[in-house]
């Protein structure tokens, strides 16, 4: 009987020591501060978005989607953004064709082939630094190297557009995002478990077979996501393009019967972010809502691309489970 009482009191002792949650004022304060910072960023974002969409509404109400398909014009009633959309898509095409294979290949070399010595580490550190270089610097590089030397050299520096074509712009953006592409791909490759490499090599696969059959397929979803986010950055880029030859004019014409080669080499182009900048600096009142509308179109395109990347990643990941 007494033993039972003692057991009970032992239980009581433990209960007393582990029960009774004490509120820590510091903990509560930290939690509230963190919540406040989170909320303030969200509120700022929502305000910006709501403001832009509200400002853009008159354009979509009065003109519908013809705003998207109309050409540039100095008149606020007629101006559309068609050239910008086509220009941006063409630029992105070049970025994908140039930066994706180059970036993935460079990352595969760095992660899988290069020996870990001082030179490799130096190169790695430089690539990380390059990813932080302001885009206007790449614009100067693009103007000098791609516009004047390459395109000017091939298609003529005098007369016409003087090398300020989509190829030069695309190459500039490709170089701009290349370091980010390499970094994200290298991270994706590093995340592939060591055991998978061992397994493949142990059954007699060569290094390249191991990479192609096992490492790249497993890293692919992460490479894809990283690449799409990188390409989205190129999509919204304006500073570099201002220097590298995108048209700032509100009316330029492209030959109607131009071939693809002619379009990318010998015709002027502009991009959606450049048009936004251009609309924003026009004095006429009508351009305020046009600017907002162009921003909405840019955001919708970016969100679509990002959503597609997420969907694609989920599909690829599911394949291996």
């Amino acid at each position, binding site marked *: 009987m007494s033993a039972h009482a003692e057991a009970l009191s032992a239980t009581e002792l433990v209960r007393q020591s582990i029960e009774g949650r004490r509120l820590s004022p510091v903990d509560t304060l930290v939690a509230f501060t963190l919540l406040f910072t989170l909320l303030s960023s969200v509120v700022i974002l929502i305000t910006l978005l709501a403001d832009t969409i509200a400002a853009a509404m008159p354009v979509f109400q009065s003109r519908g989607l013809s705003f998207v398909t109309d050409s540039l014009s100095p008149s606020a009633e007629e101006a559309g953004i068609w050239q910008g959309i086509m220009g941006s898509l063409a630029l992105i095409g070049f970025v994908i064709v140039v930066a994706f294979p180059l970036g993935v290949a460079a990352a595969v070399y760095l992660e899988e082939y290069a*020996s870990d010595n001082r030179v490799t580490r130096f190169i790695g550190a430089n690539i990380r630094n390059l990813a932080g270089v302001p885009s206007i610097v790449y614009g100067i590089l693009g103007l000098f190297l791609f516009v004047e030397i390459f395109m000017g050299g091939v298609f003529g520096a005098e007369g016409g557009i003087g090398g300020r074509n989509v190829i030069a712009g695309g190459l500039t953006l490709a170089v701009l995002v290349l370091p980010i592409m390499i970094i994200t791909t290298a991270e994706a490759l590093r995340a592939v478990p060591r*055991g*998978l490499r061992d397994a*493949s*090599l142990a*059954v*007699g*696969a060569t290094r390249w*077979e191991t990479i192609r059959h*096992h490492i790249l397929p497993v890293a692919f979803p992460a490479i894809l996501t990283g690449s799409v986010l990188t390409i989205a950055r190129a999509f919204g880029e304006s500073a570099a393009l201002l220097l590298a030859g995108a048209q700032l004019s509100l009316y330029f014409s492209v030959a109607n019967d131009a071939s693809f080669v002619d379009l990318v080499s010998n015709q002027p182009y502009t991009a959606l972010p450049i048009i936004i900048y251009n609309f924003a600096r026009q004095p006429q009142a009508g351009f305020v809502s046009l600017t907002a509308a162009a921003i909405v179109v840019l955001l919708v395109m970016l969100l679509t691309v990002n959503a597609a990347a997420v969907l694609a990643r989920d599909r690829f990941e599911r394949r291996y489970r």
Partner: protein
Amino acid sequence: MNHEQGDGLTTDIDTTSLESATETALAEEAIRVAKAAETVPRADQPLIFDVGKLTVYYGTFRAVKDVDMDIRQNQITALIGPSGCGKSTVLRCFNRMNDLIETARVEGKVEYHGVDLYGERVDPVEVRRRIGMVFQKPNPFPKSIYENIVYGPKIAGWKGNYDDLVEETLTKAALWDEVKDKLKESGMALSGGQQQRLCIARAIATSPDVVLMDEPCSSLDPIATLKIEELMLELKKDYTIVIVTHNMQQAARISDQTAFFSVRVDEQGQRTGYLVEYSQTDEIFTSPGQKLTEDYITGRFG
């Protein structure tokens, strides 16, 4: 050792029936009997690996020093010893997996059928086709069971009936009955023990000569471990097996030879692994030649 005995074992030991300790003990006894029936005197077997004065460095760190041992055909050779004694390092020299560690440097003699494995003209890829490996953590490819088996032969350019190969290999690895209806499913969906048997199947699919196993049971439960041990005894009829294990009972149960490694710390505090004793397993466990070996196997150190 005759075939019926081995096959009988495979059917007797079934994960579902193996629930009581008595049955586990029975299975252990069965393995012991199977092994005793199979033991062939070591010296009669052809020499597979001849290792002399093997020393391995990682950068400036000397992991293991002056290892001398011979490994003979159709034998199970166990490498045991405390952590950091270099037993895995030695194992990875046998199929040149140490090549993958950039700073690794191998000195001394590792001859495979009389050929210097570290000779200038030796292709490590070809070496790994002949000397398969099973790792500590089961690491099937994130592909179907079928693809896991056929991958090695396929890249080696093997021409033959792959369906037959898959059935034959999985049967040898005592996995066929459990997976024959789900060959297209991912190898990752199997249990840990099944995954490890799939890895063994993958290793033998390229018809190697030797199978190296680096603590193959350390992440498995006792029942899965027994299955793998039983499988190893079955496999040694066709292959030569070298196994690194932390489990001394395992070495005693299945191996023909045991190499006991230990660590020596020099005045600079550098730790170097070395081979203490290499002998018939029975001898190591009943009358070890070295005091250190006796201390280790009786659990006084390590």
